[in-house]
């Protein structure tokens, strides 16, 4: 298929349709509105259903209902709306239903701002709802990557019977880029999933109970298996881009739009002879721990955490892997303020110069 020019939010929406998503419920919030707008006409074209919910709370619970019927289902929102969806996401995890949640993130806390930011990292990776569950969190940096992670998101969600989050900043949601879409997957509605209440005509099966509530001992067993699943993710499912790390004396860490700007700055610094590299987590959870463990700390003089979040949110995850073997600097903007052309270049240059003294 030929490449086409598309806006980030719409690219995610079309990728979801290609992935076999046939149900979407959502509530308007900037900067993700093109996702529901696109799906409102696109889903009916392929026999799917779009519902504009009365709230984010209702929308995520509609997704829960659609998932219970074996339908690939998705909802999207931005920071304030994701907080409202926290209840439903926890119930999805509790009942072990697959679904995809998209956060096109903006400035926070509170109503914050509608401009792009990366201030939902901790919410996404540590506690997307009550009760201590985790979800896989994908953070694409290009629209093609956004298409690819969305297209594959249900494979993880259904394999694990757990919700998956796509965390992309409002900048990527709003830009246009060339993307190539994969083939249309046919939705599997044969009632063969262990989690759905679909019934195949004429087939006899015993009743199924999909419950978010468990007796104590069973709940502990279930939580242990959730822990084992997280350990499997860490072993098998980490996605990361390691850029110019081999000889790097300074290692930048950034995801999403920040990683793209950081890369430009790194190429400029490289032209001037500075040995700078980049670790770009594509999965924020599971975090690419190994990328930090295998760094040569005889050679690395500094780590620079670059995020659109103040205070920095990824810093602690980096520190847990670096374990004091190199100083960790933060260079952050926040509230909807973006990195300008020279910002990252100057910040890293200053750290290098300071380190040389």
């Amino acid at each position, binding site marked *: 298929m030929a490449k086409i020019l598309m806006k980030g939010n719409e690219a995610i929406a079309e990728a979801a349709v290609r992935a076999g998503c*046939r*149900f979407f*419920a959502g509530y308007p919030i900037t900067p993700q509105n093109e996702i529901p707008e696109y799906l409102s006409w696109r889903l009916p074209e392929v026999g799917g*259903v779009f*519902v504009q*919910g*009365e*709230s984010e*709370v*209702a*929308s995520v*619970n*509609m*997704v*829960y*209902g*659609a*998932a*219970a*019927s*074996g*339908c690939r*289902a998705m909802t999207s929102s931005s920071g304030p709306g994701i907080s409202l969806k926290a*209840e*439903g996401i926890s*119930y999805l995890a509790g*009942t072990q239903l697959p679904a995809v949640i998209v956060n096109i993130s903006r400035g926070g806390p509170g109503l914050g701002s509608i401009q792009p930011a990366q201030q939902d990292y901790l919410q996404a990776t540590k506690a997307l709802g009550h009760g201590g569950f985790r979800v896989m969190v994908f953070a694409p940096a290009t629209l093609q990557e956004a298409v690819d992670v969305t297209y594959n998101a249900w494979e993880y969600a259904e394999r694990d019977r757990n919700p998956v989050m796509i965390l992309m900043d409002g900048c990527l949601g709003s830009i246009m880029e060339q993307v190539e879409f994969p083939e249309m997957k046919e939705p599997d509605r044969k009632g063969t999933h262990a989690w759905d*209440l*679909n*019934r195949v005509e004429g087939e006899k099966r015993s*009743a*199924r*109970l*999909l*419950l*978010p*509530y468990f007796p104590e001992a069973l709940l502990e067993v279930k939580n242990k298996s959730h822990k084992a699943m997280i350990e499997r993710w860490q072993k098998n499912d980490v996605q990361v881009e390691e850029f110019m790390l081999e000889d790097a004396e300074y290692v930048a860490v950034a995801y999403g739009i920040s990683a793209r700007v950081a890369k430009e700055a790194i190429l400029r610094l490289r032209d001037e002879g500075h040995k700078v590299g980049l670790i770009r987590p594509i999965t924020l959870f599971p975090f690419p721990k190994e990328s930090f463990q295998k760094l040569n700390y005889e050679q690395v003089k500094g780590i620079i955490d670059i995020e659109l979040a103040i205070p920095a949110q990824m810093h602690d995850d980096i520190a847990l892997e670096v374990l004091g073997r190199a100083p960790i600097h933060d260079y952050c903007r926040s509230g909807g303020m973006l990195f300008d052309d020279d910002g990252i270049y100057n910040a890293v240059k200053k750290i290098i110069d300071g380190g040389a003294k």
Partner: protein
Amino acid sequence: MEYQRPSSLKPTSSGFCPGCMHSLATKLIADVLDDMGQQENSVHVVPVGCATLNLAYWKGDLVGAAHGRAPAVATGFKRTNPDRLVFAYQGDGDCAAIGLAEIMGAANRGENFTVIFFNNQTYGMTGGQMAPTTLIGQKTTTTRDGRDPLTTGYPLKMCELLATLEAPSFIARFALNTPKGCLEAKKAIKKAFTLQLENKGFSFIELLGNCPTNWGLTPLQTLDYMNTNTIPYFVPGVYKDKYAEVK
């Protein structure tokens, strides 16, 4: 005629308190499913509250919803699986307080499923706090001197509220403290399910029930209490019927 346990319910004892009309409401619904041969085709959306206990008694497919969200869960299920008979069973806190937005949204969209609303004017599972439907002057653990409308407002009339909407097809209220009320309720549940199977849209059946435990009355006393207090305020009757010809 042989009187027996509905085959839609498991042959286990009930965990509802003695004399509680939740078990009566459950039995009426199960009887209707038996009559209509819909046990296998039914999907029961279970709420949070005393009615959560139903997850242990029901034989058919069942999905548990978050508190108040049963109409949203039912929306997602029914829209993606339109051939199934979907009903949500909600208590008064679930439906008329925390889930007001969800019930109004689903009713206003005319979603093609049925909500059975059990109104016993209390949060039974959590120990008898004031519900949105608690009567004026009624004593609860959060209104020790009785519900005072000056600070807590008035009991919410869900049938009347929903009947202001264009979309719903069938809205009716029944009291379960007499055999007549039970029989009428059963007929109405059957009508609601029939309408749903004919794709005729949203139906809402309110069942006035009791809570001997939290009302501090014996089961028999609750029957009189309902006649004197509940029924005069929550008047039984049909509040909306777009398809009067369907029985």
